[in-house]
């Protein structure tokens, strides 16, 4: 039972972490509070669904199409919508409010387009719904694959951010946007790339989620909120924070469902989240900068 709960918790947490990583990039580096993030996820889920059911393309291959598409979409959205907002923002707070409002609009546009295209129906398809036994516990192959993908993407992103000059530059912008231009980093360009990268990750998350979850055109906000909670809990812009907060939440949910009461899983999520914030107002790995 314990191993089972642990593994299911990791699988669930892996998905949370994967979904949150993109948002933490967008918020931490590009400083855009993207409320349409969940809609980007769901769009990718629909894309994966269409590719699977009409082209017979399996979702892992679908990633190769969805992730670049997401990246491109993010790049365009930032260029068209965010650049003017960034240009006119007086300070961080006003950009935050503007981006909340603008992406709130974007949320509706994305959702509307999906509703018109796909209707409001529950959508799902069955892929790799086969049992896999790990340490004597049976898990669904698609969920294990989700965990593996989360690890691959998380690890890939970690390497990208820590081992390449380009990634280091992105982190530098997150750490000290004021000093980044002094070493020749174009902060706006870095922000745009980070936003696009975040969108690409959202697309990856969407494809992964579509493999084992039912979704509708209107379920994006659920993911936005889960991702936000993970991001805030981990500390804004902190990749390791997002990973660990995602895993913690997944484990907490599974353990509460197993040992206490499934009815309290979400309550437990929010309690943990609120407790973390009260204990460390800047999140687990965040630093208060005032």
């Amino acid at each position, binding site marked *: 039972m314990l191993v089972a*709960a642990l593994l299911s918790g990791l699988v669930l947490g892996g998905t949370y972490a994967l979904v949150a990583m993109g948002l933490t990039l967008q918020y931490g580096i590009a400083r855009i509070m993207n409320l349409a993030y969940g809609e980007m996820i769901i769009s990718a889920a629909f894309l994966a669904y269409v590719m699977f059911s009409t082209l017979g393309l399996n979702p892992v291959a679908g990633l190769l199409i969805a992730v670049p598409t997401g990246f491109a979409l993010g790049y365009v959205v930032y260029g068209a919508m965010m650049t003017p907002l960034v240009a006119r923002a007086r300070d961080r707070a006003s950009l935050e409010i503007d981006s909340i409002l603008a992406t709130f609009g974007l949320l509706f546009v994305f959702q509307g387009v999906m509703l018109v295209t796909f209707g*409001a129906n*529950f959508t*799902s398809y069955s892929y790799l719904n086969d049992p896999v036994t790990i340490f004597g516990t*049976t898990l669904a192959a698609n969920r294990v694959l989700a965990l593996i993908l989360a690890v691959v993407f998380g690890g890939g992103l970690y390497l990208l951010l820590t081992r390449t000059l380009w990634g280091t530059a992105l982190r530098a912008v997150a750490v000290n946007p004021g000093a980044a231009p002094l070493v020749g980093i174009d902060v706006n360009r870095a922000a745009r790339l980070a936003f696009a990268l975040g969108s690409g990750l959202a697309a990856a998350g969407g494809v992964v989620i579509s493999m084992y979850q039912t979704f509708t055109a209107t379920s994006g906000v659920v993911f936005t909120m889960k991702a936000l909670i993970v991001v805030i809990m981990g500390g804004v812009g902190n990749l390791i924070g997002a990973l660990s907060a995602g895993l913690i939440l997944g484990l907490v*949910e599974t353990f509460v*469902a*197993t040992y206490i009461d499934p009815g309290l*899983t979400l309550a437990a999520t929010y309690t943990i989240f609120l407790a973390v914030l009260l204990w460390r107002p800047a999140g687990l790995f965040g630093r208060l900068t005032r």
Partner: protein
Amino acid sequence: MKNLERRRVLRAMALAGTVAATGLLAGMTGAAMAQDRTSVKIGYAISKTGGNAGGAGITTLPNYKLWVKDVNDAGGLELPDGKKLPIEVIEYDDRSSAEEVVRAVERLATQDKVDFILVPWGTGFNLAVAPLFDRHGYPQLAVSAVTDKAPDFVKRWKKSFWMLGGGHDYANALASILADAKKAGTVNGKVAMISVADGFGIDLVTAARPAFKKAGIEVVYDKTYPGGTSDFSPMINEAKSSGADAFVAFSYPPETFALTQQAQVASFSPKILYLGVGTGFPVYGKNNGENATGIMSLGGIDPNNKMNAEYRKRHEAVTGVAPDYWGSVITYASLQMLQEAIKRKGLDKAAVSTELASGAFQTVLGETKFEDNQLRQLWWAGQWQNGQFVGVMPADRKGASKVILPRGDWKKK
């Protein structure tokens, strides 16, 4: 001082604007249309966005569209004098908000002055608009509302009709299936049960507990989970190790799909598997294929009912999606009843309501009739058999299929 004055002016402007807007509305509301009738206005508010959009998009909206097309293709709604008037539709999005649905229906009734109003989706929203339907004299054919309080509501709102039964009906039917199976020695009489923490799940589970007890069924696992749960492995593991032969989930569609998949993965194959809303969705059968066979849920159809079969075909042809096996056909039948009542009594809402309450109607369900403003000829339980979700309870109802138990093990793909 200039500053102050400017503020004052702006403040006054703001207030004046508010007053003007309100006055304008008052004027608009008073406007009436008084010309010769060239159409029948039918309106509805439905969740096109928000949390309820998924359910409404499967059960309700396609049927509204199908029915309007059917009627208009046939020349329109027939009135007692034989004249046919086309239907003019006024459609609002209630955005899954109780406040919106109330306002939208109010608008349909008093501003658009529609002849009839079709109901919104969901138990809560049907209750929210019931006082309005009643006050403005519209018959309310509440389809997607499962409530045990229907008899009370009928007393309160004389023109309301409740068409999907109550939690007790479904729970009792399930209890009797379980009891029979226990008697036959098919199962051990232990059941593991989970339910969604939502009006629907709780209604059913609170009805099921006493019903199971009365039928001598022992509930060995009984938990409630919050809506939106995606990982059921803890609950499935508990249920698996509880020694129960039967697993019951009063669940909503996303969870129904997830439970089916995760039960297969966990090789949890109870002899009786009963799942909630969503089991009767065509996509459920499509996704699960052979594995769906034997799974039970609420609703069902009579596979030999030709009219129903024809309806299903037309539904799929017109709307592009197949109807579900529970509420869809009843939604369509409710519209046919309305259509027939109008044919008999015209556009007088009171007369139509009386006719609905007392008359008998030919619908895709066969002959359909309200008892105390409630539709009781329902399939309280159904089961996937041969690629269709057929009604099995009440067993003595005409067209009932026989329950096949135990259901087979999961098939490997």
